[in-house]
């Protein structure tokens, strides 16, 4: 017979205390992303940045260094990224800041801007989201007197989506299924759209799971 496992209470307590201490002492964003500009290493992990990034790091600035010099931490201003400027030269992509959360302990005032509206390649996101890649040395402030001109954009109308018939075996299976369901051949045969309708992201898969659960019902 297996000997009954000894319940080690003190070890359990030590584990909890260690976890709590780790939570309390976790490095602030300002410490995690601090950078020594002379040697291009991070003091926190002592890792060096990749060489191709050195020029950008020296020349551009992070978002919070731009925000800290603005009134009310730059709420209402527009910010672009240099990588967006090169990626989509004709369509303006920018974030507009609506709320900022400040980390006051850091000497140079780190911020994590939250809840901003994104305009990406000329289209606007529906809800405010948290900005990511905030600590990248990539950001630029759009000056107020250039905002109007920056936002100008004539969207090129997208060509209509083309449809294509399914591969032959799948098509045969689909048609057989439809005949069994007695839809008849009067209805149009299903076609495959050449442009993906749905963005495969976390939210999409989660919603699909929920739909499946609803249909099947929970396991007994």
């Amino acid at each position: 017979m297996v000997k009954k496992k000894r319940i080690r209470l003190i070890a359990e307590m030590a584990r909890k205390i260690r976890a709590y201490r780790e939570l309390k002492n976790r490095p602030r964003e300002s410490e995690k992303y601090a950078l020594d500009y002379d040697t291009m290493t991070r003091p926190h992990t002592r890792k060096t940045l990749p060489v191709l990034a050195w020029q950008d790091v020296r020349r551009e600035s992070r978002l919070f260094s731009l925000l800290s010099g603005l009134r009310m931490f730059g709420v209402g201003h527009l910010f672009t990224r240099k990588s967006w400027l090169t990626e989509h030269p004709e369509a303006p992509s920018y974030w507009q800041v609506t709320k900022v959360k400040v980390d006051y302990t850091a000497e140079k005032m780190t911020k994590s801007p939250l809840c901003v509206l994104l305009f990406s390649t000329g289209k606007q996101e529906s809800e405010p989201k948290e900005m990511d890649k905030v600590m990248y040395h990539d950001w630029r402030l759009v000056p107020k007197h250039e905002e109007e001109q920056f936002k100008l954009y004539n969207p090129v109308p997208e060509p209509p989506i083309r449809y294509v018939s399914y591969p032959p075996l799948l098509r045969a299976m689909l048609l057989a299924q439809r005949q069994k369901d007695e839809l008849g051949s009067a209805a149009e045969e299903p076609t495959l759209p050449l442009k993906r309708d749905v963005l495969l992201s976390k939210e999409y898969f989660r919603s699909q799971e929920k739909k499946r659960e609803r249909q099947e019902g929970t396991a007994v």
Partner: protein
Amino acid sequence: MAAYTLQRCLGAVKVIHKCGSHSFIARRSLLSTAYTDSKLWDAREKDHQNLALLAALMDRTYDRNFPVSSLSISRFVDNISSREEVDQAEYYLYKFRHSPNCWYLRDWTVHSWVRQCLRYGARDKALHTLKNKVQYGMFPDDFTFNIMIDSFIKDEDFKGACSVVEEVMLQESFDLPTTQILSLYALSNYLATKPELSMSEERALGASLLISGLKQDSSIGLSAQLLGCALLGKVEMAAGIHAVFRGMPLMWTPGYLGRALAVMERVAAAPGDGKLSKDAVDYLEGLLQDLSSASDSSSGEDDESGGEEGKKEEEVVVDEDDQAERDKLPLYASRFKDLSGQLQSRGKVDPSPLQVLVSSLVQQSLASAEGPDMEQYQRKVGEWEAERQQLIRREKEMRERAEEERRAHQAAKAAAKQG
């Protein structure tokens, strides 16, 4: 004998010159006394507090890691009564900015801090906190900026006035016409003294001139835009476009000299009355000549001494865009010649120097622009007062509630002990 008469003549000329300049830029401020007067500000309800007690309270709160309310820091700043206390207040402002409540630093606190600094002669202190606005959280509103610039102009410290204007530019708050006029005055007077400018100073001056000139549609505004673009173009040619827009609210598309020429073209083509000051046009001409000769000489040297290390370093730094800019230099020079010819022929070059233009603008429009400012200031002071009173009331209520709870708690404890 001749030398003696010459000396006397020179002395006379000097005296006359001094008299002349005295009447022109005497020790007077641009804004009317009603504007800079602190009567309205002093007429607010006083909230006398002992500074030592407040300081002790704030220290205790910081030690216990509680947030300090914006009301206590505003009380501290309001009750400053000497120069040493200005320094103490600076320390507490720094601490407040690095506390969780930093977003709540009130506008009226900043305004009263500036007023107190000016009153106790700590203007350089105010300028220091303004320059390090990241660390002190100083974001004054337009009225406060106007008062600051005016006090610098009154003492003819144009360099200091230009530093303040630079801060205004970094915050992009050139909305009020009074601010624009004052900053243009400060900038033009500073430039008239022909100072030695380092690259960062040139960049700041150019950006301030450009942005303040954008709002004004008159000849002074257009000349300011031209001069600003020229200065920025000079920095761009010397150090690349990245050095220009880093940390400034400026556009990153290269070609500031091109923009200067576009301003000239617009003035030449516009049917209205806008003229360009001769100063600005001459400056651009001189600049283009300098740059062309510099680039010629450097390319000549390149041919002679092929692989020198110094030249190699420079070539590594120069970017593709910047190289394209420099190659456009002869194009700019030729276009400038055409445009200046056009401007001359259409009589759009104003021969008076920038300083005189600005002074005339000051005399014309400053008085009228001050009126709406004063009204808005009165309204703002009223709002600030209301907010302050509300904060005081809320603090009193919270204290009473805490007292009641404490009393109830003590009564409960006493009852439990007895029973």
